[in-house]
């Protein structure tokens, strides 16, 4: 097995043994989204209009919740040191870790989102577009978040700092993600928005692992 395969195997095993971490993020997402209809009242037009935005903002915040765990445990128990010393590019290892992080904490949100969208009276078409936009957009959240998580590693109060660093960078993803559903509803078609999300994903895949790897080296020095 290659080194990257070992990283994937280890992180997937850990995610399976730390189920509570995965469930915390998912329940936060479910509860946060479900509170909105209770708070603003059962006005169908209003709910329909704000549904996509609420789901996207909730996904953003839920992903912030799990970011701290991306490297913190490895930093605390010394495995991060070992990963820096292993004869494989650190950027590739970061990419593997981010991929598992996405599978464990974001993919469940993507799968749950259409179900929650029903609470807002979204049509079948809109639910498809919403799921697709989340599928393209949430990996960007994990990748960009990895930079924030590695920059704030080992700092006290790093959780707050990481939100301040990362949330502004999430804005384009939020705009195009929630916008895709609106564009679809208004008859423009979601193609443009989804293509832009795809472009953001490619850009993030290319740029962020190297940046996060550099930040990790600095924070371990």
């Amino acid at each position, binding site marked *: 097995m290659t080194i990257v395969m070992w990283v994937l195997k280890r992180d997937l095993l850990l995610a399976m043994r730390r189920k509570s971490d995965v469930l915390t993020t998912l329940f936060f997402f479910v509860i946060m989204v479900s509170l909105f209809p209770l708070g603003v009242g059962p006005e169908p037009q209003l709910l329909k209009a704000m549904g996509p935005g609420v789901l996207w903002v909730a996904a953003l915040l839920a992903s912030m919740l799990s970011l701290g765990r991306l490297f913190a445990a490895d930093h605390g128990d010394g495995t991060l040191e070992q990963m820096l010393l292993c004869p494989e590019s650190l950027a590739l290892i970061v990419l593997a870790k981010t991929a598992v992080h996405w599978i464990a904490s974001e993919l469940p949100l993507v799968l749950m989102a259409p179900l929650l969208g029903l609470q807002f009276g979204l049509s079948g078409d809109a639910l498809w577009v919403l799921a697709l936009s989340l599928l393209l957009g949430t990996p960007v959240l994990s990748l960009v978040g990895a930079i924030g998580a590695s920059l704030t590693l080992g700092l006290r109060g790093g959780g707050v700092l990481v939100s301040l660093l990362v949330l502004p960078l999430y804005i384009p993803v939020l705009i195009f993600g929630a916008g895709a559903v609106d564009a679809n509803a208004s008859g423009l078609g979601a193609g443009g928005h989804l293509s832009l999300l795809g472009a953001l994903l490619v850009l993030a895949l290319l740029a962020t692992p190297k940046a996060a790897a550099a930040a990790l080296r600095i924070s371990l*020095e």
Partner: protein
Amino acid sequence: MLEAVSLECMRGDRRLFADVGFSLAPGELLHVRGRNGSGKSSLLRMLCGLVLPESGEIKWNGLNIRRSDEYKHSLTYLGHLNGIKEELSGVENLRINCGLAGSDVGESAALDALARIGLAGREHLPVKVLSQGQRRRVMLARLLVASTPLWILDEPLAALDTDAIGLMRSLFEFHLENGGMLILTTHQELDIAAKTTHEIRFSS
């Protein structure tokens, strides 16, 4: 062959050490001594490439370790953190750590190594139920299956009982006899037979 030339280490504004140099050939041992906080761990981390020296150079077979691809394949570093995952069993930890270092170790070889280091019957327990010394043994089991020539060990004997210390000593001697190199820090009196023993002593 590992060479260090006039290394200097700064921590914030404080100079931990300056002008530290040595060269280590196959079969030789370097013992780094000094009080707590005198810079032993910083030196070892520097030798691994985790910390950049303020000045000076570290060379592996004549090439700066930053530019040597071969160096990471030749090095096993065990720090004062165990580098093992509490949720995983001893055998999983051992195999994964070896895999991360680039050498695949089979299930039976891993079980054998854990048995030799005194963890027979506990190989499949999650590490979180093991004692501190047993966790240390899980980490050190890597040395039994490692084939790297250079070992850099930071306080490898901490939390170990006398049996385990004896085992580690014979393992170190075996490694040195077979042309390995060993750099270690320890506060315990340990007589390791080696062709040549270098010593670096930090005073402050």
